[in-house]
């Protein structure tokens, strides 16, 4: 593995190795001094062309927990607003002696371009509506911690799958690890060609709610491409939201997940979000461990924890 760009072509053993590694780092993060010297002397750069503090902080925390240095680049404060090309920006950052770049970009494929232009590992921190592989790793880690394995689990991904890089990454990672995935949403938010995906599809959350082990709720946006894609937030919440009533119909061991930031009251009701079976904060914690595993794997550090 030279880069982490997508979950689409990751095989089961690679995914499991990364999750095992992440499991170990999750333990490190519970220690009084949550830090190992594995990547001392290495520098990790984050280049985020989309405003996202959460993911960037998570990567920086992961790098620091491995004793790597971090530099951070965001377009608002830099040459990109003066018209410098992505390629020149990337080459400039590389020339500073950076060992790995985490890139988030609004355009599909931007991390692939960086991987062509540069001779260092690239991690896709989210490209357009395409891929967000570290999110899939942290989600799978969270599920595995809860259930021991993804094998045979039924996972419903609910909401705007069509425009979601989280869904595209999760679908491949979860099914490769043996789970069954059901996409749930109105037709305007589902992929055009679900038959091409390793999934089944439902327009009715209530018809699947009692059989699933995980309900993965996606964040809702009301407008896409200048056209409204569902009638109103209230109607969305009624049909596809995790209401207390739906929550009570879940299997007793079933859990609720969300990639954040949540719209409480829309895709998830206020109270459900705080329930012990809503794993949203575990996901955040596991995000650091999963990203540590990725950085460690790509930078080939020595694990002497």
């Amino acid at each position: 593995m030279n880069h982490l760009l997508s979950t689409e072509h990751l095989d089961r053993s690679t995914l499991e190795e990364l999750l095992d590694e992440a499991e170990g780092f999750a333990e490190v993060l519970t220690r009084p001094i949550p830090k190992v010297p594995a990547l001392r002397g290495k520098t990790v750069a984050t280049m985020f062309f989309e405003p996202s503090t959460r993911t960037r902080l998570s990567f920086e925390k992961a790098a620091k927990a491995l004793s790597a240095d971090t530099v951070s680049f965001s377009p608002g404060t830099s040459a990109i607003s003066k018209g410098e090309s992505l390629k020149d920006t990337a080459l400039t950052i590389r020339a500073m002696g950076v060992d790995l770049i985490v890139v988030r970009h609004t355009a599909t494929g931007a991390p692939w371009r960086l991987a062509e232009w540069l001779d260092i590992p690239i991690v896709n921190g989210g490209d357009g509506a395409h891929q967000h592989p570290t999110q899939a790793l942290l989600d799978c880690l969270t599920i595995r911690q809860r259930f021991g394995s993804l094998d045979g689990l039924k996972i419903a991904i609910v909401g705007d799958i069509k425009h979601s890089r989280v869904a595209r990454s999760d679908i491949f990672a979860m099914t490769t690890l043996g789970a069954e995935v059901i996409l749930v949403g109105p037709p305007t938010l589902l992929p055009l060609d679900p038959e091409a995906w390793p999934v089944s599809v439902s327009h009715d959350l209530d018809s699947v709610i009692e059989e699933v082990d995980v309900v993965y709720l996606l964040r809702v946006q009301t407008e896409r491409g200048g056209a409204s894609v569902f009638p109103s937030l209230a109607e969305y919440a009624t049909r596809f939201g995790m209401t207390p009533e739906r929550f009570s119909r879940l299997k007793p061991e079933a859990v609720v997940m969300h990639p954040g930031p949540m719209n409480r009251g829309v895709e998830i009701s206020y109270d459900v979000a705080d329930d012990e079976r809503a794993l949203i904060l575990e996901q955040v914690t596991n995000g650091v461990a999963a990203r540590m595993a990725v950085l460690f794997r790509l930078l080939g550090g020595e694990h002497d924890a």
Partner: protein
Amino acid sequence: MHDLLLKGGSVLTHEGISVTDVAIANGRVAAIGSDLGEAGETIECGGAWVGPGFVDMHTHLREPGQEWKENIASGTAAAAAGGYTALLAMPNTDPPIDSAHLARYVSDQAFRARNAYVVSAGCLTMERAGERMAHLDELWDAGVRIFTDDGDTVQNASVLRAAMEYVAQLGGVVSQHAVDRDLSAAGFMHEGSISSRLGMQGIPREADDLTISRDIELARLTAVRYHVQHLSTARGVALVKAAKEDGLPVTAEVTPHHLMFDHGEVLSMDANYRMTPPLREPSDTAALIEGLRRGIIDVVATDHAPHAAVEKDVPFEQSMSGVTGLEWAASVVNGVVGLDQHDFFDRISIAPARIAGFTDHGQPLAEGAAGNIVVFDPDKRWTPSSTRSRSNNSPYLGRELTGKVRATLLDGVLTYAE
């Protein structure tokens, strides 16, 4: 003594096709036959096709205003290497060609470069804004015969209807880049399984089909000669076929890239596969090939659209739309469609010249006619590795093609020889 002798080619004349010699003197075809006597220079054609130089009715030469991408000298040099002797320059320059002096400027620059004959298309509306008519009378007087806002579509049906009525009375052609703005605006590629996989906003086929359908009805209403640019969908081919069956003066073109590639190429996320209309599905490609074979699609047009590296070596969605094509269009069409010599020259030379109103180009060879000729070897395999264009945004570089231009003559003078 003749200036040049093309010896032993398969020559297309008004009488048909035969293996013979063509002698050139004083810029014209002096004689066709055998034992034509001495010449200053002789090209052994070895059975290669000899016919009228290719005519492209959809070229972006970028001058005036975007010379970092291409200029008239470099674009016509690429054209000559691709066997072209005449081009219709698209008017989406900066400033756009909405007035007579700008159209004259383009032809004058081409005349100086002496690589190809160039006439500019004129804008349909001022500044290509889709609102007020361009200076259609003045453009007509400057030699413009084809009117289009290419790159943009005239969206307002009422504006288009009036412009069509006006151009119909002049005797010109309305040519449309037919894409519905609302259905296509947010999209980057064909809407289908690949866009879905990549999470990229797609452009449905209906963005083209709806506009073509509307335009054909307005052409019926106004009796204007109407030309559909760069067809990309199977349904578009069917709409053109139906219009022709109704007896409407409707013509259509297809680009080499829509004949050769489909949306599967976009999985690479390489910006050299970004174009408008987008590469669509294999079923569309098949319909386009069949449409060209049967003559439902009249013309192969390159949509040669140069963009500098800084505009293409970027993520797909941030890149400019378009690819270059003049130097290998004939090779692509020959390799992919496999037309016979007669139909090949019809689609790439004779039909576009007829639609564009070029009288000295796109005619089967005849004694006394202007020496605008190409020698094309349909069997030769080769792999393009460089370009005469100022830009190299081409998906064909590095791909093996079948058929190669051996020589191009403009008014009897070699503009390209292998």
